């Protein structure tokens, strides 16, 4: 079983549209949506939920006002400015428990925190593991790790050849959690100066965690000069460009229809994604990490 994670640094470059299409193209796979705070892959795959699980993670402090003597010690020591007027702001509380340990009258208790839900679903493309982080919750990295773990276990069980992961934007905690230990990372970028800047940073993350990257330039024809810059940057850094997808409103139309673009159209976009999948699957077979 080989694991491919799709990342981008910059948001909105087309990760989910591409993962949806790879779901339709790959023969034997389990899908995982690791963009747990703004998950969209389900909108293309039409899952029916088989398992709905609670995700409990971390704790939050609660002050019992009957016991509290309003000494103010907890407010003084809290570095997250989560306590004012002897009440805990649950959104700012990071669950460190400093107030709990220090309260002289034991007025603070730590309460387990329901941070979200995760699901195992059936789709017409195979099993999907996805999640919904609670609004304004922390610990997205832990939920991502859980989603990936579940997807890998399902893949073992079904003897699937691939786990395909739709990753979150950025380079922080949930991205690191999506990436570490994967066999191959597909980085979807766009030929804008922002796209290039963000690609360089996410390539740095791949290098830091030792995961082999491949690049896909999406909407490559909106600025071909910038696309050439990305190509030469990749060449200089020995990173392969696996696909160059043209801009086409057909991608938006397929999202509106709620199907992967390769099933919606057989135009240039679809043909390029198909070509890219052949490259990716060969790489997963013979190369990549592990």
């Amino acid at each position, binding site marked *: 079983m080989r694991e491919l994670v799709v990342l981008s640094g910059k*948001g*909105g470059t087309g990760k989910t549209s591409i993962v949806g299409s790879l779901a339709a193209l790959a023969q034997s796979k389990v899908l995982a949506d690791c963009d*747990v705070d703004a998950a969209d892959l389900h909108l293309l795959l039409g899952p029916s939920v088989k398992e709905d699980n609670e995700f409990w993670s971390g704790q939050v402090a609660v002050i019992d006002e009957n016991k509290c003597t309003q000494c103010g010690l907890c407010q003084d020591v809290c570095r997250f400015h989560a306590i004012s007027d002897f009440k805990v702001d649950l*959104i700012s509380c990071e669950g460190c428990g400093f107030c709990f*340990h220090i309260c002289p009258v034991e007025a603070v208790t730590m309460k387990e925190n329901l941070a979200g839900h995760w699901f195992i679903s059936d789709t017409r493309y195979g099993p999907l593991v996805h999640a919904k982080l609670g609004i304004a919750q922390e610990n997205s990295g832990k939920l991502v790790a859980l989603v990936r773990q579940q997807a890998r276990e399902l893949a073992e069980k079904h003897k699937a050849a691939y786990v395909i992961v739709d990753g979150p934007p950025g380079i922080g905690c949930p*991205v690191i959690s999506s990436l570490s230990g994967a066999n191959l990372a597909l980085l979807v970028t766009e030929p804008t100066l*922002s796209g290039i800047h963000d690609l360089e940073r996410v390539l740095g993350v791949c290098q830091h965690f030792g995961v082999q990257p491949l690049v896909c330039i999406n909407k490559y024809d*909106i600025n071909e000069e910038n696309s050439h810059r990305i190509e030469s940057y990749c060449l200089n850094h020995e990173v392969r460009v696996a696909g160059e997808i043209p801009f086409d409103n057909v991608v938006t139309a397929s*999202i509106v229809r709620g199907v992967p673009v390769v099933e919606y159209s057989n135009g240039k976009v679809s043909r390029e994604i198909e070509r890219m999948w052949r490259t990716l699957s060969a790489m997963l077979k013979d190369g990549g990490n592990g």
Partner: protein
Amino acid sequence: MIISVASGKGGTGKTLVATSLALSLKDSHKVMLLDCDVEEPNDHILMKPKITSSEPVLIPVPKVDETKCTYCGKCAEVCAYHAIAVLGNHVLAFPQLCHGCGACSYLCPEKAISEEGREIGIIETGQSDGMAFVHGKLTVGEAMAPPVIRRVKQQASNEGAVIIDVPPGTSCPVVEAIKDSDFCLLVTEPTPFGLNDLILAVETVRQLGIPCGVVLNRAGVGDVGVEEYCRKENIPILLTIPLDTEIARLYSRGTTLVEGMPEWKERFVALCEGVREIANERVSRIKR
């Protein structure tokens, strides 16, 4: 007045809106632009600020003086993040896991733990075209964005207009970036992805008690779901930007919309007026 520009879904045009809004207001207001997307900051690409100072962002992590340590294990017991462990006669710290809460050093009975700063990113301050500019950059390989965001926000001035460019999503970095805003602009696109993530973003700002309005970008493709949702939820659409290859081309080259197409300036000024009206109306309603 602090206006944050957020979105839920990435790549909907937050940076385009934040930079053009800031530029449109600078003739009439004292303006400050804060780029809080510290994982992938992009505002500097469009604003080309002259950076005048750069400071590291440090988080305090424990440093154990083993000559004082009795290996009692109190530090490991109180650490909620498993960032410090005592194994026999060894204390192991895992600085990458540490949130810098300070509990271990405060509660160590031997006073054997002091704190030292660990760099997780930088903030840079400067000027761009007569306005103040601040952004943060999380170091590649680091996981925790919120402390860097907090430091960027500490630079906010109390007067004039402060525009905050927010990272995508709805989790802790987003909350850190938008809390204490007077208004939150939610930039979206008219597709089922845009709508799904807009709904999550609206839930987030409502939880924080911040009034919001929508900027609809790339209008003309997609469907009417976002508009129907906004009507139903009584969320004003304060600005509509059409799908236009010229706008996309300007952005790809790192040119702001109001510089490339100056006719947009008055629309951004009007956007700000719309925001101000809603925010003022809300304040007077709360007072009543």
